[in-house]
């Protein structure tokens, strides 16, 4: 695996998030929606790699985008990288969303920075009808609105404080939409309480769904077993691992504690 790639561009989306384009024909060719890359941000204060989902892929140009929230020293260092700088990336890693031709009507439910991996899914999914429901804390947190608009048939936005779109949680939008129509599959990514609620709403109505989980990771390839998540195993439960078994799991499989 070639680890050294090149930064293409870094664009601020708002105060705490940015979009980075990376030149990498290998990852662009192999990457699938929902997969992630594991990035070495550098310095003794950011020892581990940072797992970040692929947001968008341009296979013709051989580039892909990641959306990053500045949360600590690693992502802060990453935000200061400049075009043409070499960047150490392992990827693409993990299992992405399923793109089934028989799923004609799909919806994505995203919350905050959880919206990023859903963009490439919408772009690539063969469904004939695509709905995007995105939730943010407030107006200034809304990201990639136009990009999502172009990738789906209908985009609805909710903000917690009502400063943009519908006031309230994105899960309320989901419930409302489910009153009007049903979907062959729904794809969810966001904060754990939101994913738990959205998955419960969908499973109650027998709508298949997939969730993209996040957990603190070590190796990123399934060897160190640190990124555990609770999943159903027959009548019992077990710990699966987000990096290798996920990050995308079927909604029924995950046990949200």
């Amino acid at each position, binding site marked *: *695996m070639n*680890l050294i790639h090149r930064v293409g561009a870094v664009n601020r989306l708002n105060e705490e998030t940015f979009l980075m384009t990376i030149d990498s024909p290998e990852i662009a060719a192999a990457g699938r929606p929902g997969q992630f890359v594991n990035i*070495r941000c550098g310095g*003794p*204060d*950011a*020892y*581990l*790699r940072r797992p970040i989902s692929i947001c968008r892929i341009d296979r013709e140009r051989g580039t892909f985008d990641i959306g990053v929230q500045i949360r600590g020293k690693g992502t802060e260092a990453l935000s200061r990288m400049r075009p043409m700088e070499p960047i150490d990336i*392992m990827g693409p890693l993990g299992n992405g969303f399923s793109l089934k031709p028989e799923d004609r009507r799909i919806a994505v439910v995203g919350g905050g920075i959880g919206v990023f991996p859903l963009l490439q899914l919408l772009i690539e999914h063969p469904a004939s009808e695509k709905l995007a429901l995105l939730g943010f804390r407030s107006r200034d947190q809304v990201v990639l609105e136009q990009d999502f608009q172009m990738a789906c048939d209908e985009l609805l936005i909710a903000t917690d404080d009502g400063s943009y779109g519908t006031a309230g949680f994105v899960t309320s939008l989901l419930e409302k939409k489910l009153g009007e129509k049903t979907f062959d599959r729904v794809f969810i990514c966001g904060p754990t309480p939101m994913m738990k609620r959205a998955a419960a709403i969908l499973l109650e109505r027998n709508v298949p769904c997939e969730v993209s989980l996040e*957990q*603190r*990771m*070590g*190796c*990123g*390839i*399934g*060897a*160190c*077993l*640190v*990124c*555990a*998540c609770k999943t159903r195993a027959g009548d019992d439960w*077990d*710990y699966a691992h987000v990096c*290798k078994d996920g990050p995308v799991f079927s909604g029924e499989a995950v046990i949200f504690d």
Partner: protein
Amino acid sequence: MMEKKTDMSVNIAGLKLKNPVIAASGTFGFGREYSALFDLSRLGGIAVKGLTLEPRKGNPPPRIAETPSGILNSVGLQNPGVHAFIRDEIPFLRRYDTAIIANASGNTVEEYEEMVRILSDADVDAIELNLSCPNVKEGCMAFGSTAAGITQVVSRVKPFCKKPLIVKLTPNVTDICELALAAEAAGADAVSLINTLLGMAIDVKTRRPILGNIMGGLSGPAVKPVALRMVYQVSKVVKIPVIGMGGISNGTDVVEFLLAGASAVMIGTAGFVNPYAWVEAINGLEQYMLENNCRSVAELTGGLIV
């Protein structure tokens, strides 16, 4: 091209390794994941994920926290059990020309004996007794943190052990030399050190520990000076070979541990950051040996000038 005159091989109490670099237990699974990245036959050996008699689910997440130049982990010995290892993993590992070191834990002295009996009849090259995992309530460190506990377990298993027996020691004690001497006296063929240093990390935003299990084991470059010191001290007092580990990331680090007294080394955490750390460390050691006219690894072991 320069003719290679170095001999990288080592013999640890009958355990023959093509080079002294071993993948450390708990960081390398059973090798499957890394086999997609490099040829496992490059490695001197693989110490597999810590095994127990029955499968274990491990500790609740989060199981890892980043610390300055290192990590804390609290995996808690998640593993499929020794029988699944023998059935499913040994045949895979045997496709590669590398030594298999089975890392074994138990909750009780009886379980350690049972593990050693089972693994002695399995196709492994050595057994590493884990008497030092800080992340499980029973067994392990409970035995491994006193000389009496080590004597009890090692003397119990030794008569049934048909493979080179390595005892892995914890650094979470007043005097690790006492533990090493106890292991040697009870029949250990080698000791490996150090396991992780017990530590913790706190998130001030939530006022909660970062790890689900509250405490975990510290590893990575942060622990290297401590590990190096302990390898130096232990190798001065025991006659059996010492396998050094703790924060090794490259060939230079390997040479440091050899000079301090190690006969072989284990590398783990560095691989999370650089998946080629093991291979690069082997190449780096070879280059050092060529440049310094070392004909064998044994020439370096304990070669510290003081």
